């Protein structure tokens, strides 16, 4: 399936409405990616200005989500979409929910970053946190890219990257636990790092969700709560 197929309705107006929705999803995705990117700079480098920017900017993500929900409701009510159009609308509704939550996680990271002192940063495994951050950011970008291209093979590859995100998360958490045991007084501050790392891990999960919606939309197969092998099979095999 390719994007062209959304320009082939007999109703030109319908084509435009679907195109607008797809473009808006991409705009929202780009904004969320930027929020995450800024939140990471704030967290790793202690750039408080960026941190504040992320916190105040979250409303923009929310506003696009509301707008897109309305546009999808409009399509459902007015067009009664079927087949791939219906799957597209379902995928969009679910994708923007995950994007909005990723935005919330980015905001959370930005807020935590404002609490941290440079001394906290020196004591925390920041290099590992940054690596995890860049990894999930790459996943988010890949998920959005696979959505834009309706590329199920890429969606499967990106989803599989969640394994690595989870294992990086485990390693960092072990390290932070150990640190808190060794320096109990540091617990309140290190908890901010713990919450941020947890937020990054959740972003990986949500990027994976978006990849699953891409497979649903393109192949008509629901691959949530299945193994990566099954997902890969559904994404590449016959649609039926």
């Amino acid at each position, binding site marked *: 399936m390719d994007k062209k*197929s959304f320009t*082939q*309705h*007999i*109703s030109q107006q*319908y084509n435009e409405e679907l195109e607008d929705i797809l473009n808006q999803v991409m705009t929202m995705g780009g904004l969320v990616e930027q929020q995450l990117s800024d939140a990471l700079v704030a967290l790793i480098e202690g750039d408080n200005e960026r941190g504040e920017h992320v916190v105040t900017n979250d409303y923009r993500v929310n506003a696009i989500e509301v707008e897109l929900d309305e546009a999808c409701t409009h399509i459902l009510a007015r067009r*009664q*979409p*079927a*087949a*791939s*159009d*219906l*799957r597209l609308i379902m995928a969009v509704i679910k994708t923007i929910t995950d994007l909005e939550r990723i935005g919330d996680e980015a905001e959370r990271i930005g807020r935590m970053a404002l609490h941290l002192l440079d001394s906290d940063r020196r004591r925390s495994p920041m290099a590992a946190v940054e690596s995890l951050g860049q990894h999930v950011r790459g996943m988010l970008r890949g998920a959005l890219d696979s959505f834009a291209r309706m590329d199920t093979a890429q969606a499967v590859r990106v989803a599989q990257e969640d394994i690595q995100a989870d294992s990086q998360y485990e390693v960092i958490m072990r390290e932070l636990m150990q640190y808190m045991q060794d320096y109990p007084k540091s617990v309140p501050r290190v908890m901010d790092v713990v919450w941020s790392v947890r937020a990054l891990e959740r972003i990986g999960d949500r990027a994976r969700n978006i990849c699953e919606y891409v497979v649903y939309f393109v192949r*008509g197969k629901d691959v949530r709560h299945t193994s990566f092998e099954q997902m890969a099979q559904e994404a590449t095999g016959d*649609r*039926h």
Partner: protein
Amino acid sequence: MYSTESAEYSETVTDRDASTDTATEPAGVQTPEAQAKVLVRDLKLWYGETQALYDINMDVVERQVTALIGPSGCGKSSFLRCLNRMNDLIPDVAIRGRVELDGQDIYAPHVDIVQLRSHVGMVFQKPNPFPKSIYENIAYAPRLHGIAESRSQMDELVEDSLRRAGLWNEVADRLDTPGTALSGGQQQRLCIARAIAVNPEVILMDEPASALDPMATATIEELIDELRHNYTIVIVTHNLQQAARVAGYTAFFHMGRLIEYNDTDTLFTTPREQKTEDYITGRYG
């Protein structure tokens, strides 16, 4: 049943076994795995020189609603009319292939068409009550078929038919008024009551709600949903949402061919054929 010669019947069954070979089914057509009430094999139809149906293979599932959809001229109404031999009335029609009701070939030479149509009733697009009283509209066919013997039996049958069609409460006190005096939606339900008065097994409906307003349409759809428990229903509709609402199975016809036949949920969310997808999503085919 309606075949007068049992020898004919046994011959039919033998032939049927040979013709159910799955290799003869066109690509993309999957018949549901359930009890078939009406079985269609290699059905072809011509109007004079023009072929209107090509090799239709389809099992209509018992006590289910099956919707036939497709663009104008795709053959869905021609197909529907083959199921109770309504096409016999049209000059220059040629039909080949096999249509079976409960295993009996309805095109066999000795089939009594009047009997057949009491088993396979039909409701048309435009409500067409007889220019008689409401009571007589219902009583006419049962009297013809000798179904009710006494007046009280007939009264009972009329009431029962009108109740099944959801019309009784609206007309109980004026059974002697003309059927044509009812509203469009009521007339259509009267026609449905008339069809079920002879206790058919299959009811064919050709765009039964297309001339009705949304409220009357909703009433008819509700009625179809209730009738489904006792009858096998085949409905032709141009309204895709109506097919999605009422039918358990949906068949998509295009240019005289059955392109796809599947359960309605699957057909409307993940159709197998691009032609189906293009049609139900309103794309250029």
